[in-house]
């Protein structure tokens, strides 16, 4: 082993990280090289000094200062939350009021203004209205009524009483005019 090789393994030599063969080679080199021997001894003493450097300690108020900082951060967070809430509380309440108003209007409109709207009125009620509708349909004018009567008496086959037929208005008008 030469000086350059010893320099490369000097840390491992100190930390006892070398295998038996390398350690033996290093020992042989130290025994014949006073420069490397001195270097090793000097480095060991430096490392020993480094590990025994006086320890610094934090000042006695270190913890209280730290806790003050933590509390300050907490307060800042809380005040930020309150500020955000204050900033947005007015628009939120306006939006809520508008939504409530719209919901109430929709409810009132569907239940009072449009009573026949789907879903709000039972289907049986619609059925009961239908016959009235069909009876009033032809009663538009006195002439129509008369013509209807004429056409029904002229017909040989009477329509089924349950069946409501739509009268042929054009034909009836022509007959009246004649």
């Amino acid at each position, binding site marked *: 082993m030469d000086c350059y090789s010893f320099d490369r393994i000097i840390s491992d030599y100190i930390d006892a*990280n070398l295998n038996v063969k390398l350690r033996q080679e290093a020992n042989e080199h130290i025994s014949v090289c006073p420069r490397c021997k001195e270097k090793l001894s000097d480095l060991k003493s*430096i490392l020993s*000094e*480094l*590990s025994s450097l*006086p320890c610094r*300690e934090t000042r006695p108020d270190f913890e209280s200062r730290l806790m003050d900082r933590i509390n300050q951060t907490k307060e800042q967070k809380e005040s930020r939350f309150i500020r955000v809430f204050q900033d947005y509380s007015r628009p939120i309440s306006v939006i809520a009021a508008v939504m409530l108003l719209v919901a109430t209007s929709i409810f009132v409109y569907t239940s009072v203004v449009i009573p026949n709207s789907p879903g709000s009125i039972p289907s049986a009620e619609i059925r009961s209205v239908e016959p009235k509708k069909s009876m009033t349909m032809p009663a538009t004018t006195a002439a129509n009524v008369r013509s209807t009567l004429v056409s029904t008496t002229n017909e040989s086959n009477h329509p089924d009483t349950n069946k409501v037929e739509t009268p042929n208005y054009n034909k009836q008008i022509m007959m009246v005019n004649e």
Partner: protein
Amino acid sequence: MEREKIKYTDEELVKRFQDGDERAYIELVKRYKDRLLNFVYRYLNSFEQSEDVVQDTLMKLYTSAHMYREIAKFSTWIFTIAANLAKSELRRLKRRRVISIHSMGFDDKEYEIPSVDYDPAKETTSNYGEKQIQQAIDTLPDQFKTVIILREVQQLSYEEISQILGISIGTVKSRINRGRLRLQKLLKELKEQ
């Protein structure tokens, strides 16, 4: 309280803090404040700034404890935070020193950047002394400085250093070897001056 100190490991304390127990946080602060200070102090060579960095590190622990997962040792995690903050602070300090030197006039020829809080009373009675050793550490390139402090001052294992710095164990070994030799050379030069 004494029983609690023995009872809980660092990792258990973080877990308790994550679950909302603030006493666990205070216990972690007590355990780590001086260890972190010694690491950061050797790195920055300024007591005031080092204490600030340790405060920032422990603040980060308070606000980001939920980020800790028990895949790494707690000590490794907290030292990683401290190392990153110390690096940023050192960069900031260097910038400030460069600016202050540039702003000097021709009359201010003799300028020295003194260690503000150097205490001669604490000088070691050895070959080199704390002042010279600290001066040599300050002169080391950053990549060697960090590994030397973590290994020689904090006595951390190669594996822990590798995790803290996010580099391979091989790189850690190589940096430690080169860093030690560089430190030795610097100390020799300082002694000869």
